[in-house]
């Protein structure tokens, strides 16, 4: 049995930041199913928010209000306040740790405007902000390698829970297939999002809901799962991200008739309205037959920015266009459509990253979560661009601190190693024993298709019901899947099958939560209930595993400074 004071699952921004916090005096293990530098945080392009005021005066109060309004008043305001107050310090700390940022002519960290922010608040490094922070944090892990052990290409299968306390995780080494138990005084989940349930998504192949489903299987509810963010600029058909920075640098959205259409939807902010509004505007244009050439896309036009500015501020985007579709955005517009991008919901935590299991705030002791897999909830019903990197770093740090304080005084629990290992080995064996004829590829494609079509930008009761039914059928077919590789060594097929199992359940949770929220708020839009309904739905959804069906409960939103008002831009 492997033993660490603290074990962290996931090594993106939140995970590595948590590791740096806990390793000051404790023995830490950090686990990733890829390599730390391959984490999906690295794909974040545009920026990280903080009210530094490098170019225009700014304040945490304004950042707080923008975030709450952007989130359609579903954010817990006590958490938002601490989060935006921490932001400038977090950025300076990253800078001190060696992170590379683009600079103003006088040497300060440069900032640019982003959707839904009333001030230029996005600190950035060209259009590689996530990548630069990810690598800077990895450098720090290397610096502290004596105190942090990195387990690259290890998969986390389940949590070990006794009563109300977490004692560790059951994992396996992808390279060798060996199943191990990691015993820990505290466990921190930083396992990212689950956009891979959709066909059109900006998410990496690794974003498959493993962390949130492990928590769910341990009896922990998932909060606000219906709030999936659709990013307005995904590459047509592929979903690969073209950063919001493209619009913040001045890019236009143009429909098939050659019109800039955002004046119809958000006249004061145009292309820089929050993402939910822009994504719906685009989808409305497409659905009304005003897509380019009558097809399912619209254009992102950057030509007027000129080659110099594009090369300086958006070099990666230009290269992506060239590599993936042979379009040079200096001369031609880029074809885009809304793409599933970010999961606002997740494992419920308090503002210290402590996982809580009900509406009363009862903690699951020794279990913490941060980043996209967690729901604090600072983003409410819709996250503003550049607020996710900030969330990962702020709550990575805070959960690390909280886990450190907890683990310092806690002792190791007792674990039945054999029993825990057997459970996972049984999952392996069960998959290997299947001699079914169903293709996992077909099941995966059908899940993605039904989610994008029926649980996408626009939703309604009949579609969601159809979606849930289809998913249940796919879950049934999943048990009769066909396996090719029964080896122990580097069996990527096996892990993809396990990931698919997690996603099929996650998709059902998302669509069930969406069916039960009979209103429209932020990223969740019900065509049959197009208005926000504060009277009945100013509350967070909690989905629990039930006996046969999923069990849905709600909990109130924490409102401190800002009463909900109608949201206009």
């Amino acid at each position, binding site marked *: 049995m492997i033993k660490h004071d603290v074990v962290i699952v996931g090594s993106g921004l939140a995970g590595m930041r948590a590791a740096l916090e806990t390793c000051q005096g404790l023995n830490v293990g950090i686990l990733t199913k890829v390599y730390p530098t391959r984490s999906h945080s690295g794909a974040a392009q545009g920026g990280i928010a903080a009210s530094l005021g490098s170019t225009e005066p700014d304040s945490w109060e304004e950042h707080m209000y923008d975030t709450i309004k952007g989130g359609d008043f579903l954010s817990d305001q006590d958490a938002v306040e601490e989060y935006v107050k921490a932001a400038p310090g977090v950025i300076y700390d990253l800078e001190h740790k060696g992170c590379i940022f683009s600079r103003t002519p006088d040497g300060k960290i440069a900032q640019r405007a982003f959707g839904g922010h009333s001030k230029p608040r996005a600190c950035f490094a060209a259009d590689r902000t996530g990548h630069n922070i990810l690598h800077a944090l990895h450098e720090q892990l290397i610096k502290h390698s004596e105190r942090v052990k990195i387990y690259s290409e290890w998969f986390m299968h389940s949590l070990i829970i006794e009563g109300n306390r977490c004692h560790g995780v059951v994992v396996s080494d992808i390279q060798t297939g060996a199943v191990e138990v990691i015993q820990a005084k505290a466990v921190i989940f930083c396992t990212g999002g689950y956009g891979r349930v959709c066909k059109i998504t900006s998410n990496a192949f690794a974003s498959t809901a493993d962390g949130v489903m492990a928590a769910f299987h341990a009896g922990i509810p998932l909060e606000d799962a219906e709030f999936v963010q659709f990013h307005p600029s995904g590459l047509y058909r592929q979903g*690969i991200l073209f950063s919001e920075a493209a619009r913040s640098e001045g890019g236009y959205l143009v429909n098939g008739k050659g019109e800039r259409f955002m004046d119809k939807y958000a006249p004061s902010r145009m292309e820089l309205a929050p993402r939910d509004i822009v994504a719906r505007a685009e989808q409305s244009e497409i659905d009304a037959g005003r897509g380019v050439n009558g097809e399912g896309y619209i254009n992102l036009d950057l030509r007027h920015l000129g080659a110099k500015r594009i090369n300086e501020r958006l070099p990666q985007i230009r290269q992506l266009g060239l590599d993936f579709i042979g379009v040079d955005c200096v001369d031609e517009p880029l074809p885009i459509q809304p793409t599933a991008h970010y999961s606002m919901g997740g494992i419920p935590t308090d503002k210290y990253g402590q996982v809580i299991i009900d509406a009363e705030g009862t903690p699951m002791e020794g279990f913490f979560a941060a980043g996209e897999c967690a729901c604090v909830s600072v983003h409410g019903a819709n996250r503003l661009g550049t607020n996710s990197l900030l969330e990962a770093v702020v709550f990575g740090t805070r959960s690390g601190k909280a886990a450190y304080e907890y683990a310092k005084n806690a002792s190791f629990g007792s674990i039945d190693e054999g029993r825990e290992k057997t459970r996972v080995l049984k999952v392996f064996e069960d998959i290997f024993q299947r001699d079914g004829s169903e293709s996992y590829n077909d099941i995966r494609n059908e899940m993605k298709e039904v989610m994008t079509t029926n649980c996408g930008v626009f939703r309604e009761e009949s579609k969601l019901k159809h979606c849930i039914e289809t998913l249940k059928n796919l879950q049934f077919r999943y048990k009769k899947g066909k396996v090719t590789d029964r080896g122990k060594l*580097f069996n990527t097929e096996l892990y993809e099958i396990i990931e698919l199992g997690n996603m099929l359940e996650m998709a059902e949770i998302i669509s069930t939560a969406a069916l039960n929220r009979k209103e429209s708020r932020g990223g969740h839009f019900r065509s049959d209930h197009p208005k926000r309904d504060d009277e009945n739905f100013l509350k967070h959804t909690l989905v629990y595993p039930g006996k046969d069906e999923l069990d849905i409960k709600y909990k109130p939103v924490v409102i401190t400074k800002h009463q909900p008002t109608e949201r206009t831009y």
Partner: protein
Amino acid sequence: MSKFKIKRYNPEKQAEAYFEEFDFEIPEGATLLDCMNHIKWTMDGSFTFRMSCRSAICGSCAVRVNGHATLACQKQAVDLLKKDEVVLEPLGNMKPMKDLAVDFTQFWDKVNKVNPYLKSPSTPPEKERLQSPEEFKLIDDASTCIMCGACYSDCNVLEVDENFLGPAALAKAQRFVSDTRDENTLERVKNLSEYGGIWDCTHCAECVERCPKPAQPFYRIKEIMTVALEKGVHDNVGARHALSFVDSVKHSGRLNENKLPVESMGFFNIKGLLELVPVGLRMLLKRKVPPIFHKSIDDVQDVRRIFRKLNQ
């Protein structure tokens, strides 16, 4: 119909690697990674490779295509066809583990060796350390490296000397050598001038060809060399070799092949000089010895004018 000829290897089944062919029509717009997944998901689920972001930023899916390392997600498959065939192999200079997945242990060990983190012992200011856009530019290219291993795979030096740190680790090192916030430049360039470091690069620039990003390691290595010479870190074979080279061309317009090895090794480096003797003898036997009396070229004045122009 296109043919994907793929090197398969699974030590659980058989000791030797072999090629297997998969034929299908490449769908319009499919990247190489899309095609690899098509094979995995519909033809042979045991086919093993790494992938994650499929947007050229995570660095997982580097493989060798038609003999050269490339990022699978970044290339349109049709562009890689050679007579309707694409040959896929694991990255070079690393041990294959299964099919196209290779062991990255040594790669990361070498990155760790260059102390790849900012060393700035003085207390940082309350806010950010100032850094001009020009200073940012010095480290911006190196910072685009995604650690995909494409450069490492095709590095010609690594093929013969596994002690070489390799292009990726050295590019990473440049990012700190040239960072105005780092206070350890001299020690860094001294370490990087040791055996296995910058001076062991043979300037073939293969890494520049293979790099999928603007990181382009060879140019970064050259930048470290420049800083090393500026900082007076001459006390090593590589730096002396470079300086002797420059000196010779400056004075005669051509290379003095008699002086170069001696100056590179150092006049008082008896052991090193003795090591040169067998090479010299072999050259003698093969009649490859340069003329004993070194002559200048006719237009040596022009060469000297160029050096003056370059302020050397």
